[in-house]
């Protein structure tokens, strides 16, 4: 595989000039001949090293999870429906890690809840299919879903402090999940819990077992959530912003833990985050969601190396990639996109169009279809045909 590494020093000068506002076309500059060419800038992610063999190989087996054209609405008390997800589709293979990238409110948490059919009151799955191991989850009964949750598909919620019961010991909280799905006796459950805790905690497992959540730090709480999620050896693990409230050092440890999980359990993981950097470390494939619709989907490599969708490009350019990279744009205005992605009502055209710097006439009129850039890379943008 060709080396895809760049060095910071190799970069051309950042396209952000010293005192000016960002150029109107992020990521592009005029070459000598007047044509536009892609500029590697200090604010762009350089590359993502390929970690796993599964990423670029074409999976021959049936995908473990297939989401097809999922549409989810939230209906408020007055009966008005707001579209949260519109036509989401992707495949997840066994052992693969899919990163779902999007801003707050784009629907990525809704997607996680929809898969497990745990939408809050008001949420309703309007149409689509979620095929797990061949069968459609949307037509399963609640009892069947209950036996699936935590046992075959696990979800790690966002805020560890809120996801743990305040007056129940940590060991017991994990044991209850085992009790819900497996027929072990009390002592077997306790042994299994200790085993799990030794896996996620390097040391101190015994003390953690009988601790209460409020006695643990944020990172420790997150590890407990992970232990809960893998207790029954699920096939799919969904982690919603697993490192959002953590310190950088703890973040690093938790991500390393996820690496270990991938390696030791061959789990399929769906990692949800708003931070491209975090997803870049672990994901094989990336799904970019903007305002409830798929903007781009492809191998992590391709996505970060050469982002196609204007939103993704804008996102990757707007945030410095590392402290060293940040130095290069010290005290300069960052090339952010104006406005925000939240609270979009259903519109006719592309949902990113109001903020897009490369918009064309058709963009406001129709929603762009998915265009296949490469064998496993799709973009939803008129710029690439439609």
């Amino acid at each position, binding site marked *: 595989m060709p080396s895809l*590494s*760049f*060095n*910071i020093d190799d970069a051309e000068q950042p396209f952000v000039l010293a005192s000016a506002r960002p150029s109107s076309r992020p990521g592009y500059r005029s070459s000598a001949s007047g044509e536009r060419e892609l500029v590697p800038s200090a604010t762009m*992610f*350089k*590359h*993502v*090293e390929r*970690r796993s063999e599964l990423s670029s190989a074409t999976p021959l087996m049936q995908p473990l999870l297939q989401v097809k054209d999922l549409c989810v609405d939230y209906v408020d008390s007055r009966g008005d429906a707001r579209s949260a997800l519109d036509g989401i589709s992707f495949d997840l293979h066994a052992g693969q890690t899919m990163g779902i990238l999007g*801003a*707050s*409110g784009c629907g990525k948490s809704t997607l996680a809840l929809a898969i497990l059919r745990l939408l809050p009151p008001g949420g309703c799955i309007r149409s689509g299919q979620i095929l797990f191991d061949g069968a459609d989850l949307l037509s399963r009964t609640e009892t069947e879903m209950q036996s699936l949750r935590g046992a075959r598909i696990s979800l790690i919620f966002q805020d560890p402090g809120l996801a743990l019961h305040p007056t129940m010991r940590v060991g017991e909280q994990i044991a209850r999940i085992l009790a819900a799905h497996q027929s072990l006796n009390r002592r077997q459950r306790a042994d299994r819990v200790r085993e799990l805790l030794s896996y996620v905690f390097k040391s101190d497992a015994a003390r953690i077992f009988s601790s209460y959540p409020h006695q643990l*730090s*944020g990172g420790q709480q997150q590890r407990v959530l992970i232990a809960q999620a893998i207790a029954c050896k699920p096939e799919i693990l969904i982690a919603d912003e697993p*490192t959002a409230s953590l*310190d*950088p*050092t*703890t*973040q*690093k440890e938790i*991500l390393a833990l996820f690496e270990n999980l991938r390696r030791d359990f061959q789990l399929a993981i769906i990692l949800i985050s*708003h*931070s*491209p*950097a*975090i997803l*870049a*470390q672990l994901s094989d494939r990336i799904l970019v969601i903007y305002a409830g619709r798929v903007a781009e989907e492809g191998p992590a490599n391709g996505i970060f190396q050469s982002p196609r969708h204007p939103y993704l490009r*804008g*996102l990757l350019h*707007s*945030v*410095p*990639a*590392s*402290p*060293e*990279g*940040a*130095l290069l*744009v*010290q*005290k*300069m*205005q*960052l090339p*952010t*996109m*104006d406005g*925000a992605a*939240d*609270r979009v009502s259903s519109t006719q055209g592309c949902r990113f169009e109001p903020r897009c710097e490369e918009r064309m006439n058709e963009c406001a009129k129709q929603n762009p279809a998915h265009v296949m850039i490469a064998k496993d890379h799709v973009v939803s943008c008129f710029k690439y045909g439609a």
Partner: protein
Amino acid sequence: MAHERAAHASSNKPLLRAEALVKRYPATRGSGARQEVTALNSISFSIYPGKTLAVVGESGSGKSTLALCASCAEKPTSGKLWLEETEVTSLTDAELRAFRPRVQLIFQNPASAMNPRWSAEDIVAEPLLIADTARKARIGRAHELLERVGLSAADGPRSLSEFSGGQRQRLAIARALTLEPKLLILDEALSALDNSIAAQIVNLLLDLQEANGTAYLFITHDLTLAAHFADEIAVIERGVIIEQGPTAQIVRTPRDERTRALLNAMPALDSTRAAQRRS
């Protein structure tokens, strides 16, 4: 304002100076034994007008206590604090009141710092209640500030729940600007926001700094953000500043191992680090 900024820019007297700040809190363990926690252990720093000092540390390092002491919300156990040549640590509450407008605090969770029943314009105009200006003038000023921070005057009457996280932080900044402070202390103000929204707020802050000459004390655990935004970085751990210096120096040639560890922990990849990770 421009002439003030010019005057400040050329001034090399620190706006805020802390010397050997110590802050201890009593803490009771379950057994009933009284212990003391030393949150700050002899901290010294200076912030110059129109400049940004970033204090970077992890949770428990004492950075939030630092914010509280620097804004005079809490009195340090020992040590001195000077605000523009006046020693403020020995002042009484009544005497401090004159200084409060000069230093404003912005917190991590904007929603908890604002009254959810009030409209945006009332929230922004709240500090003006002290000066007892007429309501019309207050609201007018509030609208001005809303425009300044990238919202619009039309947002004035809307209630807090209609604003997103990033917009609420803009509101917090607008409110802080009401009294034209010389120093803004941002305590993890961007930590709860998406990177892209945080970047927008950073742009706003840079803009304000250039226009008004506001100084910032930027408290964060994100070194990338600090590297972009700050003139000087101080790394704090367990109540002690382990390293301090100009941003480029700290990022490129960190002297302390712990600073290096913090730099490495930033979630960004380049070839060398990924290779290390694999081996």
